[in-house]
């Protein structure tokens, strides 16, 4: 009997921690590759298979990916965060308001000149991230300390952030009836700058954060606790895992990511679109679910989420090049989500 335990070769012990999460990744990765190959082959002159096209796809995916990374941690704990999209919007609006207020005299700011940009921009960034973090902290605290369902709490914060964002943006700034666009220097570096290999700054930042969070999730105590809490919260508590504070950290992190995404979105588009983010939460959740993270908690990966975030964008670009209505993208993505959840259910049956 003991032989089976010892005869186990070291190579085997380095095997993937969760075979099922891993195999889902692989499966969904092939779907992504197949889609890219398919669109590359059928597009006129293989227009899809083009560096510029791929860069644009990555650029469009990066922002949702930032939200989806925070959402991955939340969903692994068997929670949900519906507020990330409007928190992104609120963070962006408040940041642009702060930058306009602190940027210089109202007349100059209105004409696009920001003499104090050097202090206004970092302050705006800090405020956006703090707002995101506070929204997450509120979510986490209500979910844990008051034992409220995450679905309801984050729906409430979704609505509150939406309303506050509207209020701030319509109150205007720097003597204007609306908030003026952010300084060009900010937009050109963080928003539209090319950091390395001619890749947009936003893409590089998102890739870096994906890498770091992947390591955090798979190699650190924070990651292990995230899985444990999602897999068996009461068991984790009995085993000495600080479940409440861990969950609060996870929600705060998701809010922080929304704040960061708010800043990058602001830099890219010069102003925050008030209406344009109300469905971001669903896009983020879709990316996580397509990527094989279980809504039941306890399993999931950043790698899967990255792939899951790319699939809707690839479909949209592919359809656009083919001249197919982009509404079909919604239909196909919806079908993919349903299939992904179906797989989740089947796996779930094996777990219990």
């Amino acid at each position, binding site marked *: 009997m003991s032989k089976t*335990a010892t005869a186990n070769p070291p190579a085997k*012990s380095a095997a*993937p921690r*969760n075979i099922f999460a891993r195999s889902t990744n692989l499966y969904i990765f092939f779907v992504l590759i197949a889609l890219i190959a398919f669109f590359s082959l059928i597009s006129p002159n293989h227009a899809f298979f083009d560096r510029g096209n791929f860069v644009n796809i990555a650029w469009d995916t990066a922002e949702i990916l930032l939200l989806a990374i925070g959402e991955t941690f939340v969903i692994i704990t068997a929670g949900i965060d519906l507020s990330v999209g409007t928190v992104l919007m609120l963070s962006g609006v408040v940041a642009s308001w702060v930058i306009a207020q602190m940027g210089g005299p109202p007349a100059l700011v209105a004409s696009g000149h920001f003499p104090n940009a050097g202090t206004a921009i970092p302050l705006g960034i800090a405020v956006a991230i703090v707002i995101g973090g506070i929204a997450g902290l509120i979510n986490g605290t209500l979910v844990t300390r008051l034992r409220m369902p995450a679905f309801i709490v984050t729906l409430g914060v979704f609505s509150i952030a939406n309303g506050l964002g509207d209020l701030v943006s319509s109150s205007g700034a720097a003597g204007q009836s609306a908030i003026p666009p952010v300084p060009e220097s900010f937009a050109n570096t963080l928003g539209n700058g090319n950091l390395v290999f001619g890749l947009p700054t936003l893409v590089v930042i998102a890739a870096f954060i994906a890498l770091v969070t992947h390591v955090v999730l798979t190699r650190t105590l924070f990651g*292990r606790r995230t*899985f*444990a809490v999602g897999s068996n919260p009461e068991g984790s508590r009995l*085993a*000495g895992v600080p479940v409440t504070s861990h969950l609060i950290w996870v929600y705060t992190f998701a809010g922080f990511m929304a704040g960061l995404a708010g800043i990058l979105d602001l830099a890219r588009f010069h102003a925050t679109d008030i209406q344009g983010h109300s469905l971001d939460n669903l896009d983020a959740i879709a990316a996580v679910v397509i990527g094989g993270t279980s809504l039941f908690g306890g399993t999931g990966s950043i790698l899967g989420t990255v792939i899951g975030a790319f699939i809707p964008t690839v479909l949209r670009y592919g359809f656009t090049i083919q001249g197919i209505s982009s509404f079909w993208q919604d239909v196909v993505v919806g079908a993919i989500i349903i299939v992904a959840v179906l797989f989740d259910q089947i796996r779930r049956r094996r777990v219990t």
Partner: protein
Amino acid sequence: MDVATPKAAILEARGISKTFGRVTALSDATFSAYAGEVSAIVGDNGAGKSTFIKILSGAIAPSGGDFLLDGKPVHLTSPQDARDHGIETVYQDLALAPSLDVASNLFLGREARLPGILGRLGFLDDRLMRARARQELEDLQVGLSSVSQPVFTLSGGQRQAIAVARATAWGKRIVIMDEPTAALGVRESAMVLKLIERIKQNGVAVIMISHSMPEVFEVADRITILRLGRTVRQMRRDETTMTDVVAFMTGASVEFVQEIER
């Protein structure tokens, strides 16, 4: 009925009570456990056994009563607190994280970190944890093909063995088990009972809840009987019989139980 013994109890609970709103789960539970002995707690469904050992293991706070460790009064405020006193528990529902692998479950709440700066940043030493987990399971003669497999891939008996192994790996003084064999087949039950014998021989005080009288009479040195949240008897195994124990458990007369058994 107190047992005259020269040996001092490692753990003593006196007059423990617990109410959940209007439900009285325990009213007057008294119990003692001794190093190197197996103390069984028996009682009917709802007698308060699980509640009692959750109190012993710090998972819930008692409404009243005294708790002594090595004769000194203690207040256990959390499972962590109990663990710091060398008390480990195998809960009835095992409290394992099914999607985590075996090694991670053995180290749940006590994860080993890498040495140096990486460890301080929170990086885990999975290699060390797997090696230790393999060693621990080997010592307990639990057969498993890999400590890297998720717990949900294991059989009920294997899961039980992991939960027991986790408790014995860390519980240096007192190991508490709530129905450790309830979900197991004959062979797997025998394995767990052997585990209990082995840790008892290491001088650990084992506290065990069981519904199976033959099992209790096989491994227990002492038997405490709970009925309706109250300790009705504490005895040595060799002073009593299964028929007596069942009679005390149910509140029926010995004659009635003998009648039923016939």
